[in-house]
């Protein structure tokens, strides 16, 4: 935010670092504490892998087994074997992929469009309407679940994927993020030039704004994909175990008559694996996206 202003007083020794205030320096204690925090962050995920790679007798071992075993493939094949589990895990994965991709594309598109209008177009009530968008973040819409369900019954969408897609096609956070980015990084001159060339506003959006927002669109897309992939309450209510998303399917695994921990945590592990891979590859962008969204005007 104010990094430019802080460059001058920064001592020359640290010139390569971004000039931001650091209270004290990072001593060994800092690294030890952060190392422990990382351990705590990673351990539950590692644990799910450990349980998923053993059979159930290892779950009941005492002291607990702490290293991965050799049963991971066996457990995964059990997971996808419809004869052995109470839910179609393949279908769940495909459903989640469809829902999350559709929602992601829509959120990025509609948020860019609205963000462009709020950042660069002049119209009556612009500021008030933008404040209204922000205010909707504070409305706990989840509590309207009963009428929303009644709505879905009317539309005939219960147990269909559009029931979890349609309510999420655009988010206030997305509009906010896009407006901030477009206001800062798309120059007015570029937009005026396109207008002089005879572009309608939609043409300006398509040819000037969309190419310019690619970096932040990627971040918004990632965050949206994760949120949608992880959503549970509403899919549980409106979809149910017959046509589940991956979260509903995983929770259904845990509701079997016999507690099959190895299978449950195999499902859990498989359900987080796609996001884990995305996170390992693009974690830097995700971190920057969350921090960008946090710095608000």
């Amino acid at each position: 935010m104010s990094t430019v202003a802080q460059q001058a007083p920064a001592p020359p020794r640290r010139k390569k670092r971004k000039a931001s205030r650091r209270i004290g320096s990072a001593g060994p204690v800092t690294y030890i504490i952060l190392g422990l925090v990382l351990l705590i962050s990673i351990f539950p995920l590692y644990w799910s892998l450990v349980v998923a790679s053993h059979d159930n007798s290892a779950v009941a071992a005492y002291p607990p087994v702490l290293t991965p075993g050799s049963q991971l493939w066996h457990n995964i094949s059990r997971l996808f074997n419809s004869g052995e589990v109470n839910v179609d895990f393949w279908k769940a994965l495909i459903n989640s992929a469809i829902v999350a991709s559709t929602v992601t594309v829509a959120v990025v598109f509609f948020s860019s469009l609205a963000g462009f209008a709020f950042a660069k177009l002049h119209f009556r009530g612009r500021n008030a309407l933008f404040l209204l968008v922000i205010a909707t973040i504070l409305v706990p819409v989840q509590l309207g679940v009963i009428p929303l369900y009644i709505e879905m019954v009317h539309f005939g969408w219960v147990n269909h994927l559009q029931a979890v897609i349609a309510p999420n096609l655009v988010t206030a956070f997305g509009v906010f993020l896009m407006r901030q980015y477009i206001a800062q990084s798309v120059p007015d001159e570029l937009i005026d030039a396109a207008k002089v060339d005879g572009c309608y506003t939609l043409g300006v959006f398509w040819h000037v704004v969309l190419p310019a927002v690619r970096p932040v669109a990627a971040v918004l897309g990632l965050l949206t994909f994760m949120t949608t992939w992880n959503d549970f309450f509403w899919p549980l209510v409106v979809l149910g175990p017959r046509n589940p998303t991956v979260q509903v399917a995983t929770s259904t695994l845990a509701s079997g008559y016999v507690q099959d921990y190895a299978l449950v945590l195999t499902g859990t592990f498989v359900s987080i694996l796609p996001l884990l891979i995305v996170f390992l590859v693009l974690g830097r962008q995700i971190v920057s996206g969350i921090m960008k969204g946090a710095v608000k005007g």
Partner: protein
Amino acid sequence: MSERTAVQSSVGAAPARRRIGVRGRLHRVDAKASPYLYIAPFFLLFLVFGLFPLGYTAWVSMTDRTLLDPHAHFVGLANYSALLHDSYFWNAVENTLGIWVIATIPQLLIALGLATLLNTGLHARTFFRMGVLLPQVTSLVAVALIFTQLFSRDYGFINYMLHFVGIHKVDWEAGRLSSWIALSVMVTWRWAGYNALIYLAAMQGIPDELYEAAAIDGAGAWKQFIHVTIPQLRNTIIFTVIISTIGGLQLFTEPYLFQPLKQGGTGGSARQYQTVVMYLYEKGFGSTQFKFGYAAAIGWSLFLLIAVISAVNLFIVRRIRTSEA
């Protein structure tokens, strides 16, 4: 203006001129109307799938509607007065508030501490930031299922660790306070790092001069933290407290999956950790009752509760500046 009259006055005007006129008018209409068109999707979707259901909840809550019988009768405030005398509801409110308090306060304090550590001159900064954010990537369902196993009485890893310090076989799920603690550990694990990054972003916006001035006044690291960092983070703290309130009071997934074999949403055999949203789910969808009117009354009551508690929080946190600066 002249263009327009020219086009209007002579139907047989040169085609080229006419096109310019129409285009000019189209551009004007475009400039006036299209902004509203571009923001319309957000407002339309919010109206249809957010605001309308929430408002309609108020109406449904005054009927005896069920899923199977959509021809509801207006019953006035009967659902609410029943709710006031419903001990399960008050139990759920108590659980929700209890879990929320012991989950939110440590979580935000840990986040502040983490942000301070991350704000030092670290090597491998991105690595550490990603590390603290990792739990946030994990779905609520995964968190709940993994921790349920970690907290299990006989073979759970947490009880195994605790036996080294002389604590034996805690039945986390069975006790009231113990189940609250287990659930708040899940919430804290998932959210502390995320909030830390939000605080970190805000800390990096604090001007150096404030710290230099404090240092000249003889303030050490701790006093700088209390007198500079905290007041400067005031708005961010308000933001995180409000968001944690809204999210925390709607807690559902972790307690719902804490006892996986019985997913009716009762929150333990003695309802020791049933939250309000779980109770809403139980009445609306979980059992075979499908009491939509009653469930809607629960939803609307929780909405009021969230509004009141957010306002109280706002009032408390706003005092940061007046008392500290």
